[in-house]
């Protein structure tokens, strides 16, 4: 157990943007070089601090997208039109710029291969980011694992997006699932499904979870991340379906009226 005053302060560090990857029209990934980064677990986040020339500061938290195995730290930022920090990170920041951050933060919404499986990930919109860190970590850690180990850590991801073009990491998710029969990725598109779409086209509900999720008897470790209404609906439905609340870990973000 932690006791008072013993932990070192989580220091602010200077990070350098070494690449920017546009993921969707509203999201992009900042690839950062962070000298002295102490390492992290999949699911943790960082605090980012911006300082204006007159000393005015703003801080926000962002989930880490990259796995611990990656040498650079990646943050995937969703641009919020009325935001204060995300428009700057989305529109202004470019390669070579510096950024202050501290972390890693959060020790509950985390998973690594030592935690065990099976794993059920449910995400909405940019709520995929910490879940992607878990999938990337799993992929890296199991690179030379045998079939039994892979099966023990089998994963199902249910991911809700407004439109097909809003699906973050779409190609990477497809290629991860293509090469790994123990990873199943299911999309639901809540607004404009593409022509010929045969998948789900509604918000995640209990019926969908009953169809997609591992049965409660398999005692999956569950991670749910997204806007509050999605997380509330999913967590409540999972408990109704018989999943023990203690195995359902949630991370809610954004305004109460989110609509993914």
């Amino acid at each position: 157990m932690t006791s008072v005053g013993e932990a070192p302060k989580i220091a602010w560090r200077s990070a350098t943007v070494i690449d920017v990857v546009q993921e969707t029209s509203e999201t992009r990934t900042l690839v950062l070089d962070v000298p002295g980064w102490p390492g992290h677990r999949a699911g943790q986040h960082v605090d980012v601090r911006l300082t204006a020339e007159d000393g005015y500061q703003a801080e926000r938290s962002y989930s880490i997208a990259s796995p611990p195995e990656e040498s650079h730290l990646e943050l995937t930022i969703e641009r919020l039109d009325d935001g204060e920090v995300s428009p700057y990170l989305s529109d202004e920041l470019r390669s070579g710029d510096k950024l202050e951050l501290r972390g890693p933060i959060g020790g509950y919404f985390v998973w690594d291969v030592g935690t065990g499986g099976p794993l059920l990930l449910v995400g909405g919109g940019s709520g995929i980011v910490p879940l992607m860190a878990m999938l990337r970590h799993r992929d890296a850690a199991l690179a030379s694992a045998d079939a039994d180990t892979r099966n023990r850590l089998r994963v199902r991801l249910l991911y809700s997006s407004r439109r097909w073009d809003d699906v973050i990491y779409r190609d990477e998710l497809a290629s991860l699932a293509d090469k790994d029969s123990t990873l199943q990725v299911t999309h639901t598109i809540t607004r404009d499904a593409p022509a010929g779409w045969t998948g789900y086209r509604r918000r995640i509900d209990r019926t969908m979870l009953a169809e997609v999720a591992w049965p409660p008897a398999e005692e999956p470790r569950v991670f749910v991340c997204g806007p509050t209404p999605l997380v509330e609906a999913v967590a409540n439905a999972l408990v109704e379906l018989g999943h023990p609340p203690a195995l359902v870990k949630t991370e809610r973000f954004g305004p109460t009226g989110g609509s993914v």
Partner: protein
Amino acid sequence: MSLISRGFRGKRQSAETAGRLPPGQYETRDFPVLSAGPTPRTPLTAWDFTLRGADGRSARWTWDELVALPRQTITKDIHCVTKWSKFDTVWEGISIDTLLSESAAKGIEAAPYVLARCDGGYTTNLPLADVTGGKAWIAFMYDGKPLPPEHGGPARLLVPHLYFWKSAKWVRELALLESDVPGFWESLGYHNYGDPWREQRYAGDE
């Protein structure tokens, strides 16, 4: 000296707003929800609240008994460690002072620390001095309406002068303790005390 972020201006607030915001916080008009797991739902008929003494003696109130105690209306700014602050939130609840004086009449003695225990297993720890003297409540009304489950209903601890994770949702018990015991987030890297004005977010923050 902080690094200057080229081209960053930020959204400036009025001097009045800025003066009410602890360092690193921004004002929201919304009421975001943050919880580590599913929202527990305990029917009021099965709900009770316990104040437990360090010697194991306890006082217990049913829902009807608790809400019949003298209630107060509280208007306070609240500050979440995830950076949002919300001004002038209006609550109704029972002062912890009231519960302590009722339980003192039953022989339960004060102790220097408290641990709040909640439905769903959540816990948070505080010095007794931070929940007495008109600083903390068991709140069951928000904005004139019963507190919604996702915001901690039927009742949550309200300790507005500390980061809001200390205002434990779905609270069912306050245990008086002779020594401090870290709660849920306090065991997972968050600050043991959590004063927003000193920006005590994480373990190690001064």
